[in-house]
């Protein structure tokens, strides 16, 4: 059994990687830069060069000017608990410190010089004499941030100049929207693997001839050299391990185990991991209430319909199931909100917003009667959950009831039921011991259909009822164009879903003796 689960879980890994790849590609290759729309949405008013500078800053921060495959690899490396290479370090404040990234070389540098200058090897002692390693690291990090920013703006200036020259040459396709030389950042499918484009020779001549280009390029190279020197210094400082190392080594220097890092949310300036840690339990709570309800209500009603096949109960419940199943979840939510929750247009029976009352923090957990009735945290939460859970369950309930009925009817005509009857087993035992036990198998399989649908449905439910779960987080991320959150959210939901499917598989294997674990 354990080996079965392990094997089944191992198969999940390629699927998981495939899924994240699909998501990453979808989000990265979509036309329009999803990640930067927010940060640069000053749009028209912002001056062209400062706009370019902002974009350049974000490109650098998120590594957007690398080939997409590299970006994906880096992202996967961050979110994977299994990490490769040099271990990260953690400061005593809990911040994660990574080895510094490479400094991108100035664009088109080969047109102007043969070799980029090499900075001298770093000398930490000369940089910060007599300081302890952590402080050396901090100083060099500050220095690095400064030189790197300087370099970025110098490089941007150069790229804008080059863009201007190319425009004059009517080579607009090499110039990006922001006026910079294009080809530095991935755009659409061209950015998939390679990021540099070939310029025609007359453009090269024009670039070389332009004095402004020449000047800004020189500045960029100087700034590059400084940045590189600074980077080498911080790398050297990092290598002295100024902070304790994070994670747990598996194979020294190669593989280690660390916390998945989902990055920082642009729109909320908080770690995405923390956002998800808040949202995921909410969604799971809703589903954890909804799934058992579905099964406990649907199975008896489906069984009853099957046993009373052809009676009015069967027909009426069949019609009800189809109808329920066809009710769009958005409509159900809106109606519930308007007619059951809203106080002016409806009955006002349930709260409209959120999962807790405003004063929930001050509540006791259990209801109390002393000095008047107080609902307490538990009842308050349940009260808030009623409508969201109802909207989540009705469709699954209908599907599962129908499925139960169909499975029962299938098995009513099975040969082994005839055998059981021929033994003299009573009608009730035939239904419960034989028919139902066999109908259970397709019902377990149904979980594979129901659970993803419910996860999807919780997007709507959470949005309409303002429940701060994964669905709300996703929609917010979309409206705020927050790429890190979007990616992490979708990936986590995918993983939750896959674990649920794994659970269903294991349950099935337990329930059906015909599945062998070997």
């Amino acid at each position, binding site marked *: 059994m354990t080996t079965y689960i392990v094997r089944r879980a191992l198969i999940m890994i*390629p*699927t*998981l990687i*495939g*899924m994240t790849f*699909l*998501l990453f590609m*979808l*989000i990265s290759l*979509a*036309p*329009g830069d*999803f990640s930067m729309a927010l940060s640069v949405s000053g749009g028209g008013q912002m001056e062209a060069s400062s706009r370019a500078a902002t974009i350049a800053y974000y490109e650098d921060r998120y590594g957007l000017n690398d080939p997409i495959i590299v970006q994906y690899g880096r992202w996967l490396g961050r979110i994977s608990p299994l990490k490769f290479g040099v271990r990260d370090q953690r400061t005593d404040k809990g911040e994660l410190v990574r080895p510094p990234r490479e400094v991108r070389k100035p664009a088109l540098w080969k047109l102007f010089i043969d070799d980029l200058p090499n900075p001298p090897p770093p000398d930490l002692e000369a940089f910060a004499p007599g300081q302890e390693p952590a402080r050396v690291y901090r100083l060099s990090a500050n220095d690095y941030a400064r030189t790197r920013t300087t370099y970025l703006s110098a490089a941007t200036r150069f790229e804008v100049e080059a863009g201007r020259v190319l425009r004059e040459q*009517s080579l*607009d*396709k090499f110039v990006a*929207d922001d006026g910079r030389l294009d080809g530095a950042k991935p755009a659409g499918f061209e950015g998939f693997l390679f990021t540099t484009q070939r310029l025609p020779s007359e453009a090269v001549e024009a670039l070389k001839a332009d004095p402004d280009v020449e000047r800004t390029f020189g500045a960029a190279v100087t700034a590059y050299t400084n940045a590189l020197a600074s980077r080498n210094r911080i790398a050297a400082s990092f290598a002295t391990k100024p902070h304790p190392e994070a994670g747990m080594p598996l194979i020294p220097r190669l593989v280690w185990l660390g916390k998945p890092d989902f990055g920082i949310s642009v729109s909320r300036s908080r770690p995405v991991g923390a956002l998800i840690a808040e949202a995921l339990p909410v969604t799971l709570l809703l589903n954890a209430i909804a799934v058992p309800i579905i099964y406990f209500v649907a199975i008896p009603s489906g069984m009853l319909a099957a046993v009373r096949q052809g009676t009015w109960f069967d027909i009426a419940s069949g*019609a009800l199931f*189809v*109808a329920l*199943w*066809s*009710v*769009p*979840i*958005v*409509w159900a939510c*809106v*109606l519930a*909100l*308007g007619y059951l929750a*809203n106080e*002016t*247009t*409806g009955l006002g029976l349930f709260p*409209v917003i959120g999962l807790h009352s405003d004063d929930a923090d001050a509540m006791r957990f259990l209801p109390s009667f002393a000095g008047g009735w107080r609902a307490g945290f538990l009842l308050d939460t349940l009260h808030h959950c009623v409508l969201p859970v109802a909207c989540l369950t009705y469709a699954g309930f209908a599907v599962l009831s129908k499925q139960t009925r169909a499975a029962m009817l*299938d098995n009513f*005509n099975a040969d082994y039921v005839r055998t059981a009857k021929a033994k003299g087993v009573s009608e009730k035992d035939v239904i419960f011991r034989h028919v139902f036990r066999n109908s259970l198998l397709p019902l377990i399989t149904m979980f594979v259909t129901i659970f*993803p*649908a419910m*996860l*999807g*449905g919780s*997007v*709507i439910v959470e*949005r*309409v009822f303002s429940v701060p779960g994964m669905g709300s987080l*996703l*929609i917010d991320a*979309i*409206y705020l164009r927050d790429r890190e959150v*979007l990616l992490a959210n*979708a990936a986590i*939901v*995918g993983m939750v*879903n*896959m674990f649920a*499917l794994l659970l269903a598989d294991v349950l099935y294997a337990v329930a059906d003796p015909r599945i062998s674990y070997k």
Partner: protein
Amino acid sequence: MSKEAPTERAPTSDAITGVHLMQGIGHQPTRGFWTEAWADVTRRPAAIAALGWLSLVIFFGAFAPFIANGHPLWVHDTETGDLSSPLVEHLSAVDVLLAAGLVVALALWFAPVPIEKQTRLRMLFFGSLQAGCSVLIAMVIDGYFGARDAPDFARQFEQTKLYKPIAAAVAGLTPALIAATILMLLRLGWHAVAAVVLGLVLGGVLHQRWDDPPDVYDYAPRAAQGEIEAVYTLIPFGPQQGETSLDLRQPGRSTLAAVIDGVVTEAAKRKGGGGFADDPRFQRKDRSPNGVSMSTVAFDDAVMEDLRAHLEFARPILREAPEDMAAQAEQLRASGELRTLADVARWLEGDDAPRFIVGTDSLGQDALSQLIHACRLSISVGLVSTSIAVVIGVTIGAIMGYFGGKIDLLLYRVVEIFMSMPVLFLLIVAAAVLPRNTYMMMIIIGCVTWTGAARFTRAEFYKLRDQDFVQSARAAGLPLWSVLFKHMLPNGVTPVLVDASFAIASAILAEAVLSYLGLGPANQASWGKLLSDATNQVGNFVWWLAIFPGLAIFLTVLAYNLIGEALRDAIDPRRKKARV
């Protein structure tokens, strides 16, 4: 006992024995598999009702511009005496093709010509496929040349006179010529000619309707000035025709409600304090939306002043010039016919003022017009995206099931990857990052939901693979595509097609959800979008925007589900078993 012919020997009771069956007594005449299944489906009242509803939706979808349009059907220019039809002028190519297509389709279906129904069905299918391709190509061309960031040569070319005819010809004839070539290769000469003719027609329509004239709804003021006389369609509002002063009108209110509301608000303001709303005497039935009982407010000079101002403001939607109406109001007041605001309201709206039968959305756009125009989106997204899903799914599933082994293993991982994400999440993410138009929406839904069809087809092909007719087809050296799609597909596609009905239903649901979230096609009426106006952050609830669009989605989804159920029952081999 007389001698009877054996076949005429009636069963002794109401029952028949196996021998009777063998003699042919009691056998139902065998018709085609699908014909029989369809006959079974149409025997169910629920399925009939579902088909009826879908026909209605299709009808509305195809003829929406002729039912609900802000452009008048006819305009009679009183000076020149010219008759013109702004409605026709503003029809887009898709409008024309859909309406004409439906008429042609119905005519072809019911025409008393000796063509088999199956052939007609095939003609309709391929005809609409070709038309769809042409429209898509036209859209792509237009998108490329008309884009803001189009390359210079494209922009220049677009300015030339030749652009429209060439583009229309390319769009119309490319699919036609491809189809014709294939048909020629299959030695179906007449079909090829038909495809080319259809292509020419399509090209002509596209050329005629290449650019959409801008929507300017200035007919009311011109009519008020007496320049024109206009005759409108049943619902005189376009789906995107909104006036900012008309936001969120209740069902049954007229366009002039804004004028009244304005006057009432002014009156309330003049009264000072909390206005009329706080006065319990005014909490009566005929109160206006701001809580003023209009019959208690006298039509005095101040109200007349307000009325004059607001009539001027509402000039574009008045049936007469504002000055004339003000003068009329003055007269009627003098004669004592208009004494309170309620009288004024009644007089102003008259009987013939265009009304918002099911209200408006928050932008003041007529909800009914949107409901009708949204039929098109719902039906087309359902059908097209499911077709895309079926084509992808069947192809991949067929390959998986037929080859098995490593290919199966590999492709099944792809299926699993798609299944590992909840469909709605994947849809939302995709819709969020990709461009928002109808075609992209269809493609997204199709590309995300194909796994079901793939799994069904895989299972069927897996079973079929070892059957004799497949083995013999293979042994005969037929090419792979022929074995897969000509010999195996017709036998293995049944579960996919039955499932397709449910798939269409869920595609419509998906469309509604995406539109609800604001991720639907831009500039396109949609039930989901309308529904999203029903609630807002402030906690308001607009019942008419909740009930009507929701009901429309529900009924359409229900219809597809009912048909799917009926089809599944009709095809279910377990139910067929008793039949001999």
